């Protein structure tokens, strides 16, 4: 940094001399930045991102409400898994789906089932049967280069699983590593081992060629607390495994991934097996036009579950997807960019237990066709993004979602005004279990406004307000037990939230702090989906937070050693935590909590070796994870204080 500043000063001094000596080389002028030097914070803010646009724009101008967390920040927090990272992001929280499976909520809405798209190295983790993403001790958090999060709708770009948000995880092996890195971590409660995870990454890259391979395996528990007569540390597990291979030769890129995740409650086990393959070619037809054909094939056995004691399977179904896509990106001029594409995919499910569960058949097929387009105009006064997606299925009504965004950074100030429609495409099981025989895509209208101001190069304050309304919500219901058990999906009427999110970032030499506050309020009215209503309030849905405060900070003690405290305050929640004698759920208030964590990290303890030690939930607050709807499941007891040890070693290849 110092060297760069010095070089810049020298360049300007050299340029000053010609006015007396007239020996100036004009060329050197062309390399000077038109802006004053970037601070560390500005470097992060000015990095281009394509998560919400086809052409890279800076975080302050990209047409979405975005959070980005770098590997440095993730490593400093000592995050144990993805849930620790997401809890630090405004609007996000974790709750229980059922059977102790954990999922995400966003902006006060339960978002686990197809409302937030989770991708790792471009591969979608929303499984094909229900579109859920199980989180917990699952993702290789120490292998992450960067997480880009859209805290708002992404359907116009990403389709029917990104109605409320997008989490885009990019691993080091796929992005930046040119060498070998091995990492491991352990988490220890007073009376149980919380987790032991380890991974190995290898990557070799040059301009025209890149190969990466990584493996991640772990073993963990869902909680270390008691539940009925069970010690959960003995009867639950949360065990991930991920194999990830990528190859790029010129414009041709291939990625294959195999992911396994096994978790359980005291009575049942649940496993997810997912295979992904993705082949794409970026053909630069001209300096302005790129054409990108893509082929993808996914093969999954998600939500396979059965009796923990006997091992007898209750549900086992295979789901596959064949996906083909053709996309074109055209730079009409330096300031106008368009991209458009067409895609077709076919999902097929096969009941492996041969119980003819698919409407009396053993298999089920779903075909989708979509067209999408986006245009970006960079004007002096604003950047305008206009886009849409139209998706048609053989199983449900078509969905059309337009998008319009205006953004601009003007010196220290920036604004974003965003309007987007978004949709949730019914998945295989939504259609298969449709109560009335038919089901529609659910649709959302989302308005977002953000204003930000940089008081100093090291400081940014950004505030956004949003209004999110969803209609025709795909809602799960069930009744009865044993042979009487019936489950279904139906389109409920309306729900949504309004809220604000505030972010204050400060990054000085030697320390940084990121503070955030998020507030959401449920829209009222009689139309709200019953399963999300609690009797205590109409302002919050079941299990959702209304207020959240986070503080994530880092202080360098020496060049390599840093002290990193982080805090998460969650306000009151209301959830169904017990049942009465008739089996009817009783909602109770869950106390607010403060998660205080600290991690001490030592980079390059020896060349390439990084070690860290930390404590999660120092105050032993143990916030429980309630079910996010009135579904008859008791909350997952919160884990107790966890001591975390991390170790990693990286060897870079010579360039």
């Amino acid at each position: 940094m110092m060297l760069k500043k010095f070089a810049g000063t020298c360049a300007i001094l050299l340029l000053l001399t010609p006015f007396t000596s007239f020996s100036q080389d004009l060329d050197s002028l062309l390399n000077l930045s038109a802006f004053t030097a970037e601070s560390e914070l500005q470097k992060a803010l000015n990095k281009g991102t394509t998560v919400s646009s086809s052409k890279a724009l800076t975080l302050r101008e990209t047409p979405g409400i975005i959070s980005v967390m770098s590997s440095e920040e993730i490593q400093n927090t000592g995050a144990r898994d993805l849930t620790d990272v997401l809890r630090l992001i405004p609007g996000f929280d974790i709750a229980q789906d059922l059977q102790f499976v954990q999922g995400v909520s966003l902006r006060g809405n339960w978002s686990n089932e197809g409302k937030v798209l989770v991708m790792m190295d471009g591969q979608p983790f929303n499984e094909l049967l229900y579109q859920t993403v199980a989180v917990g001790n699952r993702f290789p958090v120490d292998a992450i280069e960067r997480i880009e999060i859209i805290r708002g709708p992404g359907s116009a770009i990403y389709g029917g699983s990104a109605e409320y948000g997008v989490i885009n995880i990019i691993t080091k092996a796929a992005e930046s590593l040119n060498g070998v890195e091995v990492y491991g971590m352990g988490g220890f409660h007073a009376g149980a081992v919380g987790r032991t995870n380890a991974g190995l990454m290898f990557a070799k890259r040059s301009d025209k060629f890149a190969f990466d391979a990584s493996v991640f395996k772990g073993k963990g528990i869902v909680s270390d607390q008691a539940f009925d007569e069970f010690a959960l540390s003995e009867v639950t597990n949360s065990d991930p495994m991920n194999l990830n291979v990528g190859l790029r030769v010129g414009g041709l890129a291939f990625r294959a991934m195999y992911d396994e995740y096994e978790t359980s409650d005291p009575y049942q086990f649940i496993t997810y097996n997912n295979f992904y393959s993705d082949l794409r070619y970026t053909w630069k037809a001209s300096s302005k036009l790129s054409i990108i054909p893509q082929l993808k094939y996914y093969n999954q056995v998600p939500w396979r579950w059965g009796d923990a004691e006997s091992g007898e399977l209750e549900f086992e179904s295979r789901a596959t997807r064949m996906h083909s896509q053709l996309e074109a990106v055209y730079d009409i001029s330096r300031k106008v960019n368009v991209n458009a594409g067409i895609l077709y995919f076919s999902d097929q499910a096969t009941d492996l237990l041969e119980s003819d569960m698919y409407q009396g058949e053993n298999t089920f097929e779903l075909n989708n066709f979509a067209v999408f387009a986006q245009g970006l105009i960079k004007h002096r006064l604003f950047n305008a993004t206009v886009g849409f997606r139209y998706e048609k299925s053989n199983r449900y009504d078509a969905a059309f979602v337009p998008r319009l965004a205006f953004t601009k950074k003007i010196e220290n100030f920036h604004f974003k005004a965003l309007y987007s429609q978004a949709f949730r495409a019914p998945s295989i099981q939504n259609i298969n279990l449709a109560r009335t025989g038919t089901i529609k895509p659910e649709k959302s209208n989302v308005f977002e406004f953000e204003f930000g101001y940089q008081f100093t190069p090291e400081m940014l304050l950004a505030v956004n307000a949003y209004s999110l309304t969803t209609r025709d919500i795909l809602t799960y219901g069930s009744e009865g037990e044993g042979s009487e058990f019936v489950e279904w999906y139906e389109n409920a009427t309306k729900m949504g939230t309004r809220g604000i999110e505030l972010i204050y970032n400060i990054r000085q030499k030697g320390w940084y702090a990121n503070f955030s506050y998020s507030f959401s309020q449920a829209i009222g009215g009689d139309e709200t989906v019953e399963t999300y209503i609690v009797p205590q309030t109409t302002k919050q849905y079941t299990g959702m937070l209304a207020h959240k405060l986070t503080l994530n900070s880092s202080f360098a003690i020496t060049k390599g050693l840093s002290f990193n405290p982080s805090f998460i305050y969650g306000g009151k929640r209301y959830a169904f935590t017990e049942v009465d004698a008739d089996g009817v759920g009783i909602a109770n208030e869950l106390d607010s909590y403060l998660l205080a964590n600290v991690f001490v990290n030592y980079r390059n303890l020896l060349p390439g070796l990084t070690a860290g030690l930390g404590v999660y939930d120092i105050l032993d607050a143990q916030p429980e994870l309630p079910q996010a709807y009135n579904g008859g499941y008791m909350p997952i007891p919160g884990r107790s204080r966890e001591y975390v040890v991390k170790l990693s070693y990286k060897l870079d290849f010579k360039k």
Partner: protein
Amino acid sequence: MKKVLILSFVLVSAVASAQTTNYQVHSLFVLNIAKYSEWPTADAEFHIVVFGKSKMYDELTKLTTGKNINGHTIKVSQIENVTDIGNANIVFLADGKSGNLDEIVKATEGKSIMVIAEREGLFKKGAGFSFMLTENNTLRYDINNAALAKRNIKVSKNLANLANSVI
């Protein structure tokens, strides 16, 4: 009261130091454009006028104190009215005053006055030069050679070769 004053001072200086347009670089471009251009007549003083309130005036003043261009001492001034342009060699049109371009072009017609506009694209509307920002945040310029020729101002090949576009 003292506290308030101190706080407002901190905020003002903070605002001033956030990442903003670096007019030092714009100034260097203007001075090099001057150096590599030829005017039909030459006074002892080379006069650069900044039209509109802009940090450009401060930067140009700082850079040119005690310096000269092709043997001529440099004078920099800041004006708000077209009538004050006088016999300037260069009028630098600040972004906020871009709407005055037509008026400036008309008022200086037939005179050897080079108009350099800060705002992109104004070279197509009669300015001799206008700046543009590249993808990697460096500065370039476009040239309207026809407009300059009408004013009997010649730009060197070096200058034209490095332009983003020339019309």
